[in-house]
């Protein structure tokens, strides 16, 4: 929005006017007579053009280039006048932007260093549980709705269970549902997110290759037959190399950044005026970190 306002010609005009007259009055004749040059070197023009070309993916036309240069020169006038008035100071957007650039600088430093296999193996071993190939469950599912009353539903489910055990096909058994009839290779995480913790937990504990149930859930009653269960196992590096690499790099980057930041902080001492309303404790942060267990999404 700020950028937008800054582009409005009317705003420019008003601002320029205010700046010209205002600064003259504030700064007096000495400043007024100081000549100001805005030089646009060939390299500068080329880099302005390059940036704009990167947005449009094609070379600029002559007219466009001329606009870019004119815009830049006009913006530079405002920018310099603004700097002269100290408008960059105490501006939360400018401050944040500069801080962000600094963080990028600290963060970028080791981003490109490629970790060795040795490092990755060590990381994988140290965090084996995070990279587990998870347990997977494949099962057939028959749903019985409780819409007509739970007792009647239970009777129907039990009778259906008998039929399934006697060899009835599951493909057209039970009531309408939006859940799939066959689930293949589902993880605990997936089942919990979609079916709820209780049903997921029951599913993970029914014996394989036999019809089980009825299991009650918030949706209704379920009859299930697990036909494949693959236990969790630890991964080989080659199976999870990219994930391990990404986590390893991320952690290394965060650590390096924190260390660099700490080193910079050592160069400063923070002195807070004792008359400030802060009281005696200069310790940030204001809000204590606390664990919020979040339910749902």
């Amino acid at each position: 929005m700020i950028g937008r306002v800054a582009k409005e010609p009317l705003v420019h005009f008003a601002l320029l006017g205010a700046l010209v007259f205002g600064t003259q009055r504030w700064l007096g004749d000495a400043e007024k007579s100081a000549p100001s040059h805005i030089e646009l070197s060939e390299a500068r023009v080329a880099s302005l053009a390059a940036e704009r070309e990167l947005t449009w993916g094609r070379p600029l036309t002559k007219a466009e280039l001329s606009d870019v240069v004119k815009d830049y020169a006009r913006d530079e006038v405002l920018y310099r006048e603004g700097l002269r008035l100290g408008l960059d100071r105490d501006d939360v957007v400018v401050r944040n932007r500069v801080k962000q650039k600094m963080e990028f600088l600290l963060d970028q430093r080791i981003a490109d260093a490629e970790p060795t296999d040795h490092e990755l193996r060590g990381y994988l071993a140290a965090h084996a549980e995070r990279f587990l190939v998870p347990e997977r469950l494949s099962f057939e599912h028959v749903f019985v709705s409780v819409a007509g009353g739970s007792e009647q539903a239970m009777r129907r489910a039990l009778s259906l269970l008998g039929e399934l055990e006697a060899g009835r096909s599951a493909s057209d058994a039970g009531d309408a549902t939006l859940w799939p009839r066959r689930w293949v290779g589902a993880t605990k995480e997936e089942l919990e997110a979609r079916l709820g913790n209780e049903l997921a937990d029951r599913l993970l504990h029914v014996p394989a290759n036999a019809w089980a149930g009825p299991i009650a859930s918030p949706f209704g009653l379920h009859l299930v037959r697990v036909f494949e269960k693959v236990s969790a196992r630890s991964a080989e590096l080659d199976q999870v190399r990219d994930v391990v690499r990404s986590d390893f790099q991320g952690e290394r980057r965060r650590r390096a950044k924190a260390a660099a930041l700490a080193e910079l902080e050592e160069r400063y001492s923070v002195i807070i005026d004792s008359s400030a309303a802060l009281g005696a404790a200069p310790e940030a942060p204001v809000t204590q970190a606390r664990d919020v267990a979040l339910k749902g999404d």
Partner: protein
Amino acid sequence: MQCSRSAFWLGMVAAMVGCGGGKSQAPSPAQLPEARPSGVVQAESGTGRPRTPGRVYWGDEHLHTGWSADAGAAGATLSPEDAVRFARGEKVKSSSGQMAKLERPLDWIAVTDHSDGMGVINEIRKGNPELLADPVVKRWSEDINKGGDAAKKATMEMISLQANKQLPKVITEPKFAKSVWEKNTAIMDESYRPGRFTTFIAYEWTSNAGGGDNLHRNVIYRDGKDKADQMLPMTTFESENPEDLWKWMSAWEKKTGGKLLAIPHNGNLSNGRMFELTTFEGKPITKEYAEERARWEPLCEAIQMKGQSESHPKLSNTDELAVGYEIWDRGNLALVPKKPGMLQYEYLREALKNGLLLAASTGANPFQYGMVGGTDAHNGLTAAEEDNFFGKFVSGEPRPERWNEDAMKFGARVVKGWEMTAAGYTGVWATENTREALWDAMKRRETYATSGPRILVRFFGGFDFTEADAKVSDIAYMGYRKGVPMGGQLQQAPAGKAPTFLLGAVMDARGANLDRIQVVKGWIDAQGKTHEKVFDAVWGDAERRQPDKRGKLPPVGSTVDVASASFENTIGDPQLVTVWTDPEFDAGQRAFYYLRVLEIPTPRWTAYDAARYEVKMGKKVPMTTQERAFTSPIWYTP
């Protein structure tokens, strides 16, 4: 790199459905009947995917981090990387210092920081010969690539030299600048886990025309960094006209061979401009304009933290369930007040109706929008539920005072904290959790918006659904076999037949029972006048709840105890399925149909805050809500 990664994850995940074979599977193209029922048009498909979608993937198509200038200025410190980690279920420390973790991870995320702030920064680029010609820079570069202490030392040396103005001139040259964008795309590629968690490369183009008329669009990339980096995102410094954004998208696709789509949002804050019946420059809408808009904008955000843009009770004056539901109608984004006549060009339902008119007059429908939901959170935390609402800005993160503070303030015009909406998410019916599969599903509009809960919703349209189809044990199989899914199109009804819809919903496993499913129909009559009507298609407690003599279904009731912020699932139904036939169908009239699914009343986030912080809120503050889902429409063309 990506190949090996996706091969591994795909092998592991193999999707929960659709890989097992056997006759209980959703049909493969080979199994689909050769001759489709007459009048049924297949939804357009990006790739001609071999399987039908068996599973809904949950995500947020609209999230800001500290890298957005406004979010950073408001105290957001989380990076896109933090935002992704939170969305996929990891614990992060919020900008206000609170530890936060989603109990249930999302399946995908689009981090959409504003393109306007994404400038360029200077840095040493690895292996750049011009830079490395400088011996000092060369040494730094080598040290940096060694990592660890050497890298840190080099950085510190650089900082010190800079302080003394001894920095080698070469590295301050603008041409060595690297954009924030490239950094963003690197994070998205690195944290992409095909088959498990999808990160989209994305940005928001934030056009505030005329001082706050919200014409914002989220641009979502189907492709990875290699293509995304070939051009910088479009900014509003270039243009505020959406047509120029579409031109940019077209140029990008042409250059890279990749694919993009844009999602407009917050028509409710556009002061009559989001769905106006002229172009941005006030010219009449032409067929070319309509085709371009429909091509680039298949979806629209129906709900987010700044209210819903689906319908307004003043426009839909017989729609009782639209009344008082998360309405932000006082002004535009700068709270410049609305004038009479603006509302009708701000809401999706009205736009869908006007789209039919424009289709009739120009030959193409510019407003052929499917529906998605996002948070638009500006603190990097996609927490859209009532009981975990983490606010829009950092100042709105959980605190006892947040309900009564000013969320937005322009002079005397204020939006209060309690008016924030804890919403929303998008459900995508896709064949697998990859950028390609999810994006293709978004492009064909097989999506729906929710106010937060993960309600499962299916919606199929055709001419041959019968009541028996709602009784089969896998309704999706029948749905794809005999019709088109949400987002699809029906044409030329066979003589004597009306559109039939196979539809259903299942409650969120951790949420509330369902009140009802409604079909929202919009159409134009022979005189070129638009109409709408909301039908109750199927509802909970049907054994004791029936429409009265005038056809009005009694309310479902409420089990909410505001004081303890709790409710019970003793009313409503966990699942609703039916086949609904349009009772007022006229084969000569253009129409659209979409679903609105309603939960039973539950505590609003304000009630959870009141109970947790033991605060008493003003009478105006709503303490209960009826959460809902909106599907993409199915259109009928004579």
